[in-house]
């Protein structure tokens, strides 16, 4: 029997089209990059029973199980069910695998579950975001990183979220040892100075990394009860104009970020190039075409930015324009 496979449906079902005729690869979604050991073992079993015994660790913290015969897809989908249940990823029909692949795995650095510098639980927020935007066929990349170190490389994403804390200063606990000043200078941006034995923070310069809190020996510096974020937007890799995401919002709250990401899908539906290959167009290019203001109008629909939130009125991106010149000078 010759193969008669709907490749578009296959890809939408999170199976990759393989170079090797008759084979495919199953793409396992791991929001926030944290998977429990049982599910890891299930991935291994699928690779051994259906695949070629290897597992590819993707750049976006997912896994791909290559070498699966196309006719085994329904069986693999059934075996994926326990993994999907464990990871809490939204599904449309049980036993049928992942309902979409366009919106990419939501990335997260280890965050405050493990990392001393993490300003919030990146895993929990990545999972919350995944629930809010998946399944969706639109090509959107979202990544969460715990602090300004940006270990998750969020600046390469459409939405890059960086954790922030607003350091709280108790002058009565400060002994003027200047360790916060020293560490802020050497590990961060140098936002602190000493005035008459006490510490002054340059609120504009401070990036909310929490390094001062980490190094203060007395708990004169503590973290704000609120978790804040920096939202960088429209970074991308790729052929035409790869570029880093740029700052749009600072000291923004979690709920607003979720809502902005959700709103973006409606904006894409409205403005996507109907002729885009495979119905996919990076949002960044859509924003380039419609203008930033149009994006903002859609993204902020119904969003109440908190009183602390600062917003860039314009965002300027840089990057290489391969579509204009590929010359090395």
């Amino acid at each position, binding site marked *: 029997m010759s193969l008669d496979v709907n490749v578009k449906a296959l890809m939408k079902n999170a199976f990759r089209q393989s170079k090797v005729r008759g084979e495919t690869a199953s793409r396992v979604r791991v929001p926030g990059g944290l998977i429990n050991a049982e599910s890891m073992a299930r991935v291994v079993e699928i690779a051994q029973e259906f695949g070629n015994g290897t597992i590819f660790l993707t750049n976006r913290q997912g896994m791909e199980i290559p070498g699966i015969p196309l006719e085994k897809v329904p069986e693999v989908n059934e075996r994926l069910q326990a993994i999907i249940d464990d990871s809490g990823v939204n599904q449309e029909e049980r036993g049928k695998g992942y309902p979409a692949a366009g919106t990419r795995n939501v990335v997260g650095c280890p965050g*405050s579950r493990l990392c001393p510098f993490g300003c919030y639980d990146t895993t929990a927020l990545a999972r919350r975001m995944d629930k809010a935007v998946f399944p969706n066929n639109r090509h959107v990349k979202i990544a969460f990183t715990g602090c300004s170190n940006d270990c998750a490389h969020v600046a390469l994403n459409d939405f890059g979220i960086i*954790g922030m804390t607003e350091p709280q200063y108790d002058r009565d606990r400060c002994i003027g040892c200047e*360790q916060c000043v020293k560490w802020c200078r050497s590990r961060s941006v140098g936002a602190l100075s000493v005035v*008459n034995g006490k510490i002054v923070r340059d609120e504009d310069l401070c990036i909310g990394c929490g390094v001062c809190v980490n190094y203060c020996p007395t708990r004169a510096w503590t973290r704000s009860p609120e978790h804040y974020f920096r939202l960088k937007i429209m970074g991308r890799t790729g052929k035409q104009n790869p570029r880093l995401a740029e700052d749009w919002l600072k000291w923004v709250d979690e709920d607003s970020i979720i809502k902005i990401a959700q709103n973006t899908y409606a904006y894409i539906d409205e403005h996507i190039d109907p002729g885009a290959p495979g119905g996919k167009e990076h949002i960044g290019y859509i924003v380039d075409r419609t203008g930033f203001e149009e994006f903002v109008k859609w993204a902020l629909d119904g969003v109440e930015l908190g009183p602390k939130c600062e917003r860039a009125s314009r965002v300027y991106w840089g990057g290489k324009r391969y579509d204009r010149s590929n010359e090395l000078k």
Partner: protein
Amino acid sequence: MGYVLSREGLDQVLQGLGTEYRLYAPVLKMGEGRFADTDVVRYDFVTSLDQIELSKKSDYAFKELLTPLSETLFFFTEGEVKVADKDVRDVIVLLRACDLHAVKRLDQMYLANGTEKDWFYQRIRDHVRFALIGCPSSFENCFCASMGTNVAPEGWVFSLEEADGGYRCAVADGTLAGLFAEHADAEADVEPAHVVENDTKVRVPENVPTAIYKHQMWDEYTVRCLKCGRCTIACPTCTCYTMQDVFYTDNGRVGERRRVAASCMIDGYTDVAGGGQYRRTGGERMRFKVLHKVHDFRARFGYDMCVGCGRCDDICPEYISFAACVNKLADAVDALGKEVDGDE
């Protein structure tokens, strides 16, 4: 006299004490730990039992009341000095056996070290009394039994500890007995609980030869120690301070003198005019701290400064164990002794 009280009963007692005393006790400060969404236990004024954290060892010690981390001593203008106001209403401090032993060390340093008493310390100390939190079991890193500080000395007015869903209190100050009797479920023979053994055991060397000064045992700390001083800030017996003379920027002839905590582990401590610095490396500082705690203080006052609370080990971000260091010191001293014997 001893009493068995319900949670409500003890709370009533504390409220009753609150009319005459301020209560200073360990408090779980939510979200105020170093890392995101972590807590810290440190001392603060409280008004009810709910606010008090009795199940954990405090990360920072009670000493912040007696020797504030930062305290304005007086204000000065061109010709006059005005002593800073201080709330000196009476206080009852809730602390553990090792801590009460630490009070003796603080008193020694501030009131009985040379001819002068520290007036600012005394001003606070005169209004402070203590209540003992019993320790039915040891916490991690405690080595009070090794230091002989596991049984509280005299000086507490009452004790309290959780038992069978309620509280057991011994009352040493007869004037408080009435208040306890009023809210107690029953009278009982109560001895404050104390631990007899800790997992961590420390051997303090009796005499330390000066050859230890250049011993290689300190070298590892030069690599490991951040010189952050957390170990001394959290320590109930560290007493070092420095002065800040501050001139107000609006008027450079007016200002204040502050006393702030200092530490032999933190930069600046041995700086002298001309840029000299006597102990630069973590190893040198560790040597100075450890010897002060288990040797030098004893040479002057006849007993060790360290009370074995283990807070230094709890708080060190680099997993440097003071207890392990003292044991290494004891071994090094033994080895040095053998070398000397061998030479003879």
